[in-house]
């Protein structure tokens, strides 16, 4: 399994990924998370972001602002640019133009993925991405907020309070019985939860969640919604979802993306009324 992924990955890795390391990757690999400046109560600020792949505009002058503690849902048809937007925020893709700020001072377009993670942004992928060969416990251990430089990791050990914290999250994501199973053997829904759990262990200020309930049972979806709602306030959340029932259950503000720009923004009910939204969803 592991062997396959190496190669498949290399074969499929996108061109843009290689550009991600900014030149100073080795010199300033830790950004103090404390530096986040929320003086205007805006945690994430995107302005005129444009990204194109081979002439195709994935994002077209996208502007978006997320308030601190807000729970925002992003919806939109396939190809609207939702995942690309997340890629830009997390440093996976560099925008061709535009600004992306975390708080007032942290320029996301200049940081690498690990630096952005340290700054306090956590991300869940569309397809659950966990360490399949590691146990659920180890997955959480690796995600745990800590000094993640090589030297520290080499000599890191697990203290009792770390263990307690992992146990608490395991309980929260209902994987306490699966702690010692290799994560690859978990069900799809459990993997989704494990990934959410890893996010929680990171203690991020902003969580980006790409289709978090895909492959979950109704019951699981419901519990996920509860969890997210309970997280809002302490954390800011951006949820990309197709499942309208779930979006409704979350109850936050909704942004509709289409062809790389914001089409509409407001309550779910509001945007559902919007004729432009109806048109893009129902087709011409």
């Amino acid at each position, binding site marked *: 399994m592991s062997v396959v992924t190496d190669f498949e990955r290399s074969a499929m890795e996108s061109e843009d990924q290689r550009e991600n390391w900014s030149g100073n990757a080795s010199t300033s690999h830790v950004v103090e998370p404390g530096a986040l400046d929320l003086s205007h109560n805006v945690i994430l600020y995107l302005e005129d972001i444009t990204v194109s792949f081979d002439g195709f505009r994935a994002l077209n002058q996208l502007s978006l602002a997320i308030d601190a503690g807000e729970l925002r849902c992003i919806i939109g048809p396939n190809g609207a640019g939702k995942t690309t937007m997340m890629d830009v925020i997390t440093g996976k893709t560099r925008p061709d133009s535009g600004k992306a700020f975390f708080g007032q001072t942290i320029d996301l377009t200049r940081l690498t993925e690990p630096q952005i993670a340290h700054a306090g942004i956590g991300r869940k992928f569309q397809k659950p991405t966990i360490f399949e060969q590691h146990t659920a416990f180890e997955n959480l251990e690796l995600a745990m907020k800590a000094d993640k430089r090589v030297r520290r990791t080499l000599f890191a050990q697990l203290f009792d309070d770390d263990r307690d914290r992992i146990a608490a999250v395991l309980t929260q994501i209902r994987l306490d019985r699966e702690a010692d199973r290799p994560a690859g053997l978990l069900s799809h829904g459990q993997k989704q939860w494990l990934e959410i759990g890893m996010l929680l262990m990171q203690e991020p200020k902003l969580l980006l969640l790409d289709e978090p309930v895909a492959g979950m049972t109704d019951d699981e979806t419901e519990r996920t919604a509860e969890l997210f709602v309970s997280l809002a306030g302490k954390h800011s959340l951006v949820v990309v979802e197709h*499942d309208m029932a779930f979006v409704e259950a979350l109850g936050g503000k909704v942004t509709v993306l289409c062809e790389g720009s914001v089409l509409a923004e407001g309550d779910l009910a509001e945007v559902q009324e919007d004729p432009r939204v109806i048109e893009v969803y129902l087709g011409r």
Partner: protein
Amino acid sequence: MRTPLTLRILHSTPRAGWIALAVFAAITWIAVPVAHAVLAEAHPLHLSAYSVSLLGKILCYMVVAVAMDLIWGYAGILSLGHGLFFALGGYAFGMYLMRQIGRDGSYQSDLPDFMVFLDWKELPWYWAGSDSFLGTLLLVGAVPGLVAFAFGWFAFRSRIKGVYFSIITQALTYAAMLLFFRNETGFGGNNGFTDFKRILGYSITSPEMRATLFALSAALLMACLVLGRYLVTSRFGRVLAAIRDAESRVMFIGYNPLHYKLFMWTLSAVLCGLAGALYVPQVGIINPSEMSPANSIEIAVWVAVGGRGTLVGAVLGAGIVNLAKSWFTMSFPEYWPFFLGFLFIAVTLYLPDGVVGLWRRLRARPAAAPDAPPVPTVHRDARPVSAARSSAKDPAELPAVKGAEA
């Protein structure tokens, strides 16, 4: 409370491992040296110089295999250029050995013979420090380490992966081989270094020296195993394996894979360099063909035969393949490539996890995933969790993913 590092290193290797290491140490540090250097040649238990240097050579290969396994088996990075680091360590030590010849060469000069022949009047700058034993010890690790660090830094920074990485490591060792073949490069060209006389003034052919080199090789191997074991069971090892399985996730939880890969890569190269340094005095020659791409591929083959992702497997693989080669080339000089070739094919087809995998299968451990490297067990003392109760569900049972119809 913090556990001292030494204790954690001790704990990282299980008790059975320590017993095995102790037995191994007893054989390689006491039995073999005594059988070779103390017992008279006529004694039935005397171990000949041939056997000692052959086994010593294989011990060095085993170290290389462990180093290869750390980077390939655990970090998922297949290097087809590890022969270069091995050879660089060998060359670094070879330079010292050449200087130790002194005026005993055929031109009775202070310079090594090949330099006299090239009409060089003094040592080139990069031979500085080659007459000092301590300096050489430093170079033996530093040269391959620095080369690996520089190469790795650029390669990992550019996110070169998979076969692309493998091929450029191959290009690297191939280019180095061509460079070293040139006489003007200053390392003896195709002939390389040979006809060594002494180390620290002691004759290199004396049984004592041979036994010492052998025991040192064994010590290096054991150190590698203990260190390797600690690394792969530490959190560092788990991050490394995580990079292998899902690199982007590792980045998004805040680890910089560049540094992790680079550390392991450089360490692996340094271990190869040390092995090379012990290899050269035992086989008596170092030349650029050690850097040929085929040699590096063979290193990967040892690891695969033994079982990738297990340290013991790497050791076994290097031992089995090299002993088989030594035996075949003696007993079936015209047909041995057939045997070796079919051995490789058979191992891949029928023993996907190498010899260690076979052994595991024979012991029939029911729970282990068939192709998973051993699950690190550092937190054995974590809360007991019932692993028997599986809640895995067939994805088909889950309700269909709900669409985005508005």
